[in-house]
């Protein structure tokens, strides 16, 4: 069956349908990773986005071998090049799952043209539809809605009884990130709207990754928490969390032309480089860091994006990349160890 990807600027791509037969719009983003597709598709940060796989021949292994990052596919829709037809166990299984979860897919698309388009025209909205005369809107979903959708619906406590107490603010975390952090102590997972008691009860406040715009005012309550915690309770974060921490403590945020989505970016700490996993459209403005209480600890080798910022004396550290990998290299620079060390730093 024919299916279309229509862009808000009037451009269109034709392909064939897979997954659910529903119309979904979202911001177009591309990922350059050639493996770990299911890990990427279930990453809640992709909520509100239509995901384009730059690598053409995907779904060659069965998806359950990837480590699922949430309870289902979080991207609005999936765009791939591959295949004259859907065959192979991997592709058929993904197709079935997307049908079940109401996620539309389109294949047989000239994805390289699409990637170049996204690269050159920046953040652009699109819709996956079976109707070439689609007349609906291309509105962005609000950040708060996206987060509410993928965040926890109730409060959860993990590893109860462990000595360290962690407040994990879950704005749409990947499960491997939660797994890594919760291994450090009794973890109270709180969503965007959860009641949060005294922050002084915790040994660490952690802000997860998540979808949407980190400067959204709906996140101001979290920024308040971070400001209150600075110097008192260790604070750490990843990706979206990193951006929120930065913006809480005086740095400014900026939208990138087309973001980083892939598992091949080199990050430098000034001495060595590490290859890291990325998925973000926003970043901390490097110039604005001097107005904050944070310092740059690592940066992207190609475009200077602030990759790790912090203030160890005040117990703060965060990274733009995904130290949990999944997909991609796992914790190349020892971020999780640094987080564990934060409480010591602040106590001394």
């Amino acid at each position: 069956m024919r299916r279309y990807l229509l862009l808000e600027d009037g451009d269109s791509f034709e392909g064939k349908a897979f997954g659910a037969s529903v119309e979904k719009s979202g911001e177009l983003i591309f990922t350059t990773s050639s493996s770990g597709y299911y890990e990427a598709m279930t990453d809640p940060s992709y909520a509100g986005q239509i995901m384009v796989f730059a690598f053409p021949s995907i779904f060659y292994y069965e998806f359950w071998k990837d480590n699922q990052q949430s309870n289902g596919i979080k991207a609005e829709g999936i765009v791939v090049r591959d295949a004259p037809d859907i065959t192979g166990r991997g592709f058929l299984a993904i197709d079935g799952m997307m049908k079940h979860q109401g996620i539309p897919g389109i294949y047989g698309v000239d994805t390289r043209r699409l990637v170049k388009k996204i690269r050159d025209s920046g953040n652009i909205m699109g819709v996956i539809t079976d109707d070439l005369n689609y007349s609906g809107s291309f509105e962005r979903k609000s950040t708060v809605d996206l987060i509410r959708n993928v965040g926890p619906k109730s409060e959860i406590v993990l590893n109860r009884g462990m000595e360290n107490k962690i407040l994990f603010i879950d704005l749409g975390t990947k499960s491997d990130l939660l797994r890594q952090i919760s291994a450090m102590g009794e973890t109270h997972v709180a969503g965007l709207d959860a009641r949060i008691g005294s922050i002084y009860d915790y040994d660490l406040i952690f802000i997860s990754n998540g979808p949407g715009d980190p400067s959204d005012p709906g996140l101001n309550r979290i920024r308040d928490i971070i400001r209150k915690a600075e110097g008192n309770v260790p604070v750490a974060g990843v990706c979206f969390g990193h951006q929120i921490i930065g913006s809480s403590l005086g740095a400014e945020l900026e939208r990138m032309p087309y973001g980083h989505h892939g598992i091949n970016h080199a990050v430098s700490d000034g001495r060595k480089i590490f290859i890291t996993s990325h998925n973000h459209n926003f970043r901390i403005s490097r110039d604005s860091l001097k107005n904050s209480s944070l310092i740059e600890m690592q940066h992207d080798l190609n475009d200077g994006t602030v990759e790790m910022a912090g203030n160890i004396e005040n117990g703060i550290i965060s990274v733009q990349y995904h130290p949990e990998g999944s997909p991609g290299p796992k914790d190349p620079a020892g971020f999780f160890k640094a987080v564990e060390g934060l409480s010591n730093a602040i106590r001394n």
Partner: protein
Amino acid sequence: MQSETENKRVLVIGSGPVVIGQAAEFDYAGSQACRILRSLGIYTVLLNSNPATIQTDEETADRIYVMTINFENAVRIIEKEKINGIVAGMAGQTGLNILLELYDRGIIEKYGIEIMGTPPEGIRLAEDRSLFHQKMVENSINVPESMVIRVDSWKDDLERVEFYPFIARTSFSLGGNSGRVIRNREEAERFFSSFFSIEGNNQLEIERSLLGLTEMEYEVIRDDSGNAIMVCNMENIDPMGVHTGESIVVTPSLTIPDHLHQEMRRQALKIAEILMIRGACNVQFAVDIDRERFYAIEANPRTSRSSALASKATGYPIAKIATFIVCGYALTEIRNPITGNTSAAFEPSQDYVTVKIPVWPSTKFPEDTEIGIAMHSVGETMGIGRSFEEAFLKAVASLEINLGKFFRGDMPVEEIRENISFPNNMRYAYIIAALVRNMGIHDIHNRTGWSEEILLKLKNITDLINSARTGNMEDNLEKYKRAGIPDIILSWVTGRSEVDILKMRIGKNLLPSIRKIDSSSGEYNSVTKYLYSTYLEEDDLSEDMERKILIMGSGPNRIAQGLEFDYSSVKAVREIRKMGLNAIMINSNPETVSTDFDISNELYFEPLTLEYVSGIIQKRKVSGIIVQFSGQTGQNMASSIAEVFGESMVLGTSPKSIQGMEDRNLFSEFLRQNNILQASWEGAESRGQIEEAVRKMGLPVIIRSGFIIGGSMIRIIRNSMELEKYLNEAPEGKYHISRFMEDAREFDLDFICNVDQIEICGIMEHIEEAGVHSGDAISIMGKGIPEKWIEAEGRRIISLISGHFKMKGFGNLQFMEKDGRIYVIEMNARASRTVPVISKFTGINWVGKGIRAILNGEIDREDVHIKGYCAKIPVFPFDRFENSIYALGPEMRSTGEAMATARDMEDLVEKIRVEKGIGRDYIVNINGEFTYFHGGIGEKVSREQCISIMGKYGRKLPYFEYDSHDMDLRKFCYMRRIPVFQGKRIFEFMNNRMEIKNIV
């Protein structure tokens, strides 16, 4: 970064003649290294005996020593050139061996030489199997479990074995293939109870068997600061048990889940650290995907065949970056040359797939088809596509082998089943045939170990191909092209010609789309024009260039069409660019310099078939195409190009003339009419006619089929038994039968011309008698070779031919002399295999002159002053082909060559001895009589004594044989790499018994 590059004087070690397992990939790596060193202002000295490579071209290094690569020569150069740095990691095992020898014998220390690459300790660690294993275990790297089973405790020991199946290695053999696979406890008990019942068997090491697992490779680059990246990973489609050089390989991996991939990647980087890698390194793993386990197998502390493939697959030039690193640069200080604007410290990503298929010398060694843990392949093709299927089929098309019978589905299932059930050099084709015949996926998987997912994808394609064969191809053409099926495959199955299908596509405006390789999946804009094509997508290239010339490369390395042609292609591109024109290169060979993206103005990595060549002609509106540097490939395609685009599209000698010279029967007729002598001949088009012709002229004869690469299906037939055998194997087609002239001398004459203006580049004389392929004979050149009258007669003949065929550009004439008369063997309207040797010996850029002749009709005369003598010395792969026929003949079987130069003939013979690693003593077998010459004295010996003497002296003592056909003894020698010389002339030449006529 180092500042003292100005005072650096670096010796780069080359890899020598092309042999199986160490071939053109090092031409590529070594040439890149030299170019980078020179660009950094470093005085670069090269040692390489291989004349066929662009690496030994005068433009590559400051000083080039074309001589035997051995310790003595290296030391001599180090002293003479005041060397203070050495690059040995670009030359395979040869480079590492020389480095270790220089290190062990104190030369490195004595002259204060910096080892620019991985240190000897690291190299040793990688090479010593047990040391490597131990280090890996210490560092928590996954290695296959192993255990020692002892005679007095074997039952208890077996209790603790948790890794079935395992291999019990009963003897320590190279490559570890002589082991017994034990599948379960029961088998183990049976095996050990019988093993330990034998006196003297006290213990045995067992190791987990990795046979059948998925083999993976990781290409790693690491710098002095410890920064390390993975350039790419590669998945072998053939499972463990088939050497990675013999396996079909896809990049990036398709069937490996990310968490396994990431863990292998992490361990690969760790292994590079353990081995103290400076530059490039390759790490191999065996993966058990279902059990989510993997094992490190081995690591190569240098550039390799895989790094060449990885460079071409990703666009990330590994040898280039590795050279910057050994010069002291950190990865972060190096730009990624392909994008020009990003850092080299990143991991390339692909938005396309590449598939490599090895090329085996199956027509040369038809007796050995099985493949396994030893390499037999001589080259490889790489297909690039926007899907796995497209990449795979483009790699198939690039093989330049007609596989129609496999795709057509008329092959008996029995034959297919038999041939997919063991690894062999046509298995991939039989797998296609199995899919075409609808054999079960699961069954094929069980027999081959190929992944079911991969087979399912290919099944899609074979279904489409079946529909093209039985249905209306024209209506579904768009569907086939979208699926990535090349025209040539459609042509095989439908019987329509490639020209027909091309015209059909042009009618439907179904032209290829040009895509760019940018190492970042489009994330960054790239300035480099490294391109491939697909269908029904956007073009990445829109800007135009003026005056474009398309150069056709020579495709995958094969015996008889190898590195020499790549040398000429690269020189041609450089000349065209020097002339201010734009050179576009098309080639399908990942191992070569011509497919380096910064050689030409635009590089198309594509199969050399009409479809892709004409795609570029149309899309890029080229002014013309040059086919003279592509070996036989372009000669075969010229008339099709002319049919579609007109005769004038092919620059140089016209397609019509090429046809006139390629058709042996037509050409022989031309010679007859012009009173040019040739061996008496007859044409034949059936077996009956062949027999008839042979009866007429009498044995011995030479029979050949037309349009040949290196003389496929050429045989000397000496008796009726051989004739019968030949007739049984001969397919339908045109044959040329000529009287075989015994005891004649053969010559190779290369020239450039524009109709009646002719300049001879050089004439080489074969030492072996006529009848030995020109690529297999030792050939010499120098003052007084050949005699004046022979040169004059050669000139007269080529003038006649060139005038008649209006030749323009290169020509190569092969002829014989017997009893004072000259007989023509064949004529090629293209650059020959000997052009690089002659260019290097004469010091003249003949390819440059040839290009000017082709493009401008210029023939600028230049007096050729040659000093001394040179020899081209072939090397043979007989030691790898156990069932081969060990006789030199008209079928070329050497894989490469070395070059030696000398001041006089005696010195030349000495240089050949050095290259062969032999002394003055030898054994000669004349008509079954054996003589052992040592210390200047000849001693009659029996055959048995001869064998025991050979066993004692090994490779230093050569074996000569004439008027005798002792195949067993030849085999004995080849398997031990004892140099063998066949024929009376070479015997006399090597032992200074031959009078070379007219030498002053």
